């Protein structure tokens, strides 16, 4: 993890999204899919916390060597400010942050699921899996066509791809979970990776648990520091031995977790389905990567 002053090389709109490419060799060199960067805000604003973005591209070789790309949907003060940032401006960036997706050793067929800006890290992952000779299939969801991130790129990166939008403006009409079972069967998925909204992640987790498919998901939780100091970003994760759970920091102990080990009811406090820790502890979780 490094903190750098990174020059903006390129800034562009992509549908509903905005992409920034930075010159940040120290960060790009170590970046792996699932990791993220944190970006400082200007210091005369009424908002002051750093903003966090998944790494979409990190080029180690070729003409773009040492550059790093991230993608966001401008909506709040921080992302709106970033969307206005100009090329050659410098950003205060820390990265790469967090634990990356792990690659399967033996299993081959990887189904990659992303929703909205989740595609940013999922496409990066697809590249890395393919360079390791794995089969990659994709299921991409979004509210509408505008929010499907680089569909052409998705097609290029995958053996088969299914796109689903809530309004049917691109691909099928519906939600990721509607397509998931057919997709899993169709591509004979052996490993599932996902980056999506919390509710969707939970639905994916349910499918994975039911079918005992090893999986990894990248979560997002409100982060104050992004580097493990403040403990605001925790996710309740069942211990390997089933003896209970720990509140792990999404920024430094995640953001990639095994969904089978997340205590979803507790984490998604919105729906009051919380259960107390059972007196006998939680059942140990055996699905990869443990």
């Amino acid at each position, binding site marked *: 993890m490094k903190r750098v002053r990174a020059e903006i090389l390129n800034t562009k709109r992509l549908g509903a999204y905005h992409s920034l490419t930075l010159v940040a060799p120290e960060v790009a060199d170590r970046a792996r899919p699932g990791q993220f960067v944190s970006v400082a805000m200007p210091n005369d604003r009424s*908002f002051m916390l750093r903003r966090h973005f998944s790494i979409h591209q990190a080029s180690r070789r070729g003409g773009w060597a040492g550059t790093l790309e991230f993608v966001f949907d401008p909506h709040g003060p921080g992302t709106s400010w970033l969307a206005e940032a100009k090329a050659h401006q410098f950003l205060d960036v820390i990265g790469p942050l967090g634990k990356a997706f792990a690659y399967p050793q033996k299993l081959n067929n990887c189904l990659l699921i992303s929703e909205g800006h989740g595609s940013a890290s999922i496409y990066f992952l697809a590249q890395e899996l393919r360079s390791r000779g794995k089969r990659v299939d994709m299921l991409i969801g979004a509210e509408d066509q505008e929010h499907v991130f680089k569909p052409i790129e998705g097609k290029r990166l995958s053996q088969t791809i299914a796109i689903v939008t809530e309004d049917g403006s691109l691909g099928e009409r519906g939600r990721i979970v509607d397509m998931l079972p057919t997709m899993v069967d169709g591509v004979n998925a052996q490993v599932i990776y996902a980056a999506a909204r919390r509710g969707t992640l939970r639905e994916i987790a349910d499918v994975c648990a039911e079918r005992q498919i090893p999986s990894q998901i990248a979560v997002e939780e*409100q982060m104050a*520091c992004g580097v*493990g*100091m*403040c*403990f605001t970003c925790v996710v309740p994760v069942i211990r390997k031995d089933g003896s209970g759970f720990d*509140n792990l920091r999404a920024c*430094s102990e995640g953001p990639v977790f095994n969904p089978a080990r997340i205590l979803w009811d507790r984490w998604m406090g919105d729906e009051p389905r919380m259960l107390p820790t059972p007196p006998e502890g939680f059942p140990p979780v055996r699905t990869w990567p443990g």
Partner: protein
Amino acid sequence: MAGVKPSLAVDLNGVVFPLPVLAAAGCLGTGRDGGGLVDLHRLGGVVTRSLTLHPGKGTSTPRMAETAAGLLTAVGLQNPGVEAFVSEDLPRLVRAGVPVIASVAGASLEEYIRVASFLHSNPGITALEVYLSAPDDERGGGRPFYSHLERIIEVIGSVARLSHIPVFAKLPALLPDLEETAGACVRAGAHGLTLIDGVPGMSVDTAKLRASLSTVIGGLSGPSIRPIALAAVYRVAQAMPDVPIMGVGGIGTGDDAVEFLLAGAWAVQVGTAMLVNPSAPAEIAQGIHRHLKTKGFASAADLRGRLRGNEYAHGHWTGNGEESA
């Protein structure tokens, strides 16, 4: 004098810090965190996350929300527990050579005593800081210890009596009789005071019709509370100029820190600013150094309480007209 290199070391009546800027409790993790971005050698000291007897899981998320120039948090004392802290985290801090102040928390008087007993004789620990915002389980109602002066005195008194090392009482700004409370802490044996803890605050997500934090109310920190913290430091320093005070609340620049030193703080702590800028403490120390040079002060201690007289301020801390006809 302007030519002399000013000294930044501060001596809080025997508790010496090489620099006047410390990491505030709960903002540097327990010593294993921060990814090496915070340079421990450029800190005057580290106050640990508040420690309880057993490991604490803390509250559920959302634990934070951003507010105007502020940060609301409710971590709920997630910490490894005092034993794991001493065996796993403390050695790392001791190796770095940075003074360690252990923050002592508890849900009962007994827990405070047991936590302090575990810590105070460890040679790696320079001082204790007693966190008083923990809910007082013995009194019920979820109210923090600081809501009752007798409880503050009981806790501070018990910890101070047993401790071989100096004890700082960390007080909130939220007390109309702050000076009296601070005085009572000192009489109960506190060596000094840390002012202030996060200010109770809340925000609402109006789209979801929910409070932003799972606990509804959390601690407000960051620049928004700086004037409140500064007033608290000033009030207590005016009342007890000889008692060491560590000022904390919204400090992000050297200039901010100088405000606190002028108002009467002996050293400052930095929390939220460090979460945003891990080198904030080092930059703040540099900024203090620059100010000392410019103004020709020989040391950080020289700034203390050097506020030039404000003509119409005679102990009035909320201003009514000094003349009403």
